[in-house]
């Protein structure tokens, strides 16, 4: 352990959270409730972190909301679900730890902080009907809309999402046919919520935790970049921070929690850690690998799990608040009816409606000729999509933005415009159309996952909500680009079941904790499930603070004993 103590400390607190997403805030709030002082450092000028950019889903197996609705579930079932899907790339103890504690952390923040959550009805697990222990609904939770005016001066400093329709809940959207059926949404309700600044989805979830910190008087220091950890030779005891161009030495008597998300805005790390080339990103520029930069010098161990590369596109004229092109995820678009994705040979190469399967194909390397056979790729739609469904932010009735992709009256002409073989593309569309009219996709099984139907299908479209032929001109093609998975990383800091960061000597680094996307995904291994990222932020922050304040959870031991593991 290094010893780099300053001559004097500028500030002293109990626990320091680096990052103001759900991980850092849950740690600070719990530490305060356990009798310690706490402080949150946020590098940007807004709090809420990547949590605020998310759909706000929180995946908790065996939660009390599902039980109250009579939906059957348990810790054991949630554990088996993740264990099976992790394919051995995870760690059984980490899986159980997450499942056991998420439900307790949920109750804790509801009872102590005023978090209000409810089950997203009819929202299935990704692998519902594909694997045992999956559920049709019950594990996916979302917040009750949050009145942001209660944040006072922090209302404008608590992050919003440029991509998510945060004036509506999942319930509001999906009872009217989901994302594809945006035309049927209740926009009067949305307008009312936006006017009153009532936040749903990720912005709502983040706001609850910001409010929890504010209610406790926990200082939220924005514009404060953690530069290095400070050790006393035995443990981590503080952080050197730069704020307003000056060094600030912050002493942390209980510990430091790194909850600064991952590295998606660092292309070097994307390539060398994630094995991903030049990614577009929905997240802001401070998500650049601070977790490794800070914890690396004190000997923290990293770990990697199999990962996927997402796809997205940029609509000309759209920017984020930092003035950078705004990335839109292809996920909700490419599984809609009348839509396919093809590679440079003009062929489909997977089930576009189930991203967990489809995105594994993007970076496949053909060793025979050292190419990526499925990248570049293009999404192809017909005019029925333009009439009925959103395409990113482009809604029915809106002009197709100049400079976005190609438009043509025939499939053959479209192929020529994007530089792929016309006959191949025509054949691909013809084959797809024949099967789509029957509601089938014998080649890739599109439209068979209930989650695909829920997420990007049109439940009013028959016979299959994810399949519809491409017949109506003009036709459109947009090249899809590689994109990060909203800061859900392949590589993170290895932690133990108290969220202590582990060293390469397999022992914990005393005084150093991590939460959220800064942590290696040993509880998911090869799989990801929507809602897990927010759940692991909330859970690991809570666990870290419990341990740092001298009240470590003993639940894991009890569960191991109870389950006879």
């Amino acid at each position, binding site marked *: 352990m290094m010893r780099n103590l300053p001559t004097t400390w500028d500030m002293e607190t109990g626990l320091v959270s680096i990052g103001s997403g759900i991980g850092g805030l849950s740690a600070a709030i719990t530490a305060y409730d356990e009798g310690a002082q706490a402080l949150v450092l946020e590098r940007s000028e807004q709090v809420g972190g990547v949590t605020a950019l998310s759909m706000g889903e929180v995946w908790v197996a065996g939660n009390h909301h599902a039980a109250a609705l009579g939906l059957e579930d348990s810790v054991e079932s949630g554990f088996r679900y993740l264990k099976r899907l992790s394919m051995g790339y995870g760690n059984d103890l980490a899986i159980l730890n997450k499942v056991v504690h998420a439900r307790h952390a949920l109750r804790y923040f509801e009872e102590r902080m005023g978090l209000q959550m409810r089950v997203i009805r009819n929202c299935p697990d990704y692998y519902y009907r594909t694997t045992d222990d999956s559920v049709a609904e019950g594990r996916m939770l979302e917040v009750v809309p949050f009145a942001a005016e209660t944040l006072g001066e922090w209302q404008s400093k608590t992050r919003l999402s*440029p991509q998510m329709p945060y004036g509506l809940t999942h319930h509001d959207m999906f009872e009217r046919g989901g994302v594809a059926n945006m035309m049927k949404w209740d926009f009067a309700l949305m307008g009312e919520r936006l006017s009153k600044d009532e936040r749903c989805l990720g912005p709502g979830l983040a706001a609850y935790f910001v409010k929890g910190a504010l209610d406790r008087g926990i200082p939220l220091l924005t514009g404060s970049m953690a530069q290095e950890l400070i050790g006393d030779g035995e443990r981590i005891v503080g952080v050197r921070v730069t704020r307003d161009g000056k060094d600030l030495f912050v002493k942390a008597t209980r510990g430091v929690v790194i909850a600064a998300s991952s590295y998606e805005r660092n292309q070097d790390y994307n390539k060398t850690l994630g094995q991903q080339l030049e990614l577009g990103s929905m997240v802001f520029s401070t998500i650049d690998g601070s977790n490794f930069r800070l914890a690396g010098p004190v000997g923290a161990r990293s770990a990697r799990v199999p990962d996927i590369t997402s796809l997205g596109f940029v609509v000309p004229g759209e920017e984020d608040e930092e003035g950078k092109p705004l990335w839109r995820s292809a996920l909700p678009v490419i599984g809609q009816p009348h839509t396919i994705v093809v590679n440079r040979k003009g062929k489909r190469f997977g089930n576009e409606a189930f991203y967990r399967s489809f995105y594994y194909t993007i970076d496949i390397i053909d060793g025979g000729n050292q190419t990526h056979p499925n990248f570049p790729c293009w999404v192809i739609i017909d005019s029925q999509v333009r009439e009925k469904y959103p395409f990113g932010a482009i809604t029915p009735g809106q002009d197709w933005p100049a400079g976005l992709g190609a438009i043509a009256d025939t499939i053959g002409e479209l192929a020529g415009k994007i530089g792929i073989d016309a006959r191949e593309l025509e054949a691909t569309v013809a084959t797809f159309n024949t099967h789509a009219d029957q509601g089938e996709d014998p080649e890739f099984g599109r439209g068979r996952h209930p989650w695909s139907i829920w997420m990007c299908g049109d439940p009013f479209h028959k016979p299959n909500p994810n399949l519809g032929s491409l017949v109506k001109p003009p036709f459109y093609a947009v090249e899809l680009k590689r994109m990060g998975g909203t800061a859900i990383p392949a590589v993170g800091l290895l932690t133990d079941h108290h969220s202590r960061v582990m060293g390469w000597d397999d022992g914990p680094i005393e005084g150093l904790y991590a939460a959220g996307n800064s942590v290696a995904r040993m509880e998911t291994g090869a799989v990801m499930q929507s809602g897990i990222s927010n759940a692991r932020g909330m859970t690991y922050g809570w666990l870290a603070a419990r341990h740092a304040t001298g009240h470590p959870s003993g639940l894991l031991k009890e569960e191991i004993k109870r389950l006879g593991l």
Partner: protein
Amino acid sequence: MIEAEQSVVVDVGIDDVWHYVKDMQRWAGMMPGYRECTLIDADDSRWTLKVGVGGLVRTVKVLVHVEEWDEPERVVFSYQLEGDPVRGGGSYHARRKGAHETEVALRVRVEGSGPMAPMWEAMSRPLLPQLAKSFAAKLKAEIEAAVRARP
């Protein structure tokens, strides 16, 4: 349809206020997110604005047409977003309160059209009052500063 109204008292006489607002380029320059204004003719102009909604910043082009110039009290205008199914209009009313005091009432409305009209109006609902307030404050500040700066 969504509407907003905002009044402001400018500490300048009505003729001086008119002298300032009769230039449509100045109106454009007072819009939040203003980037560019191209005058097409005496009554028509194209404004380029960067509009921020909940973390999203979008560049929009707006065709503005002045329907009435009624010196020194009234301007009536209409507008249409290029590429988006959104149109609207509004008015400027000035009332003499004193030799060096003018009350200005601004009205603006947004009308979505097509299948997503309710969405466009919902998005405009929180935006419009902020826009009117910001525009009125800037109008007052700029006119008063311009008059003060006169030799």
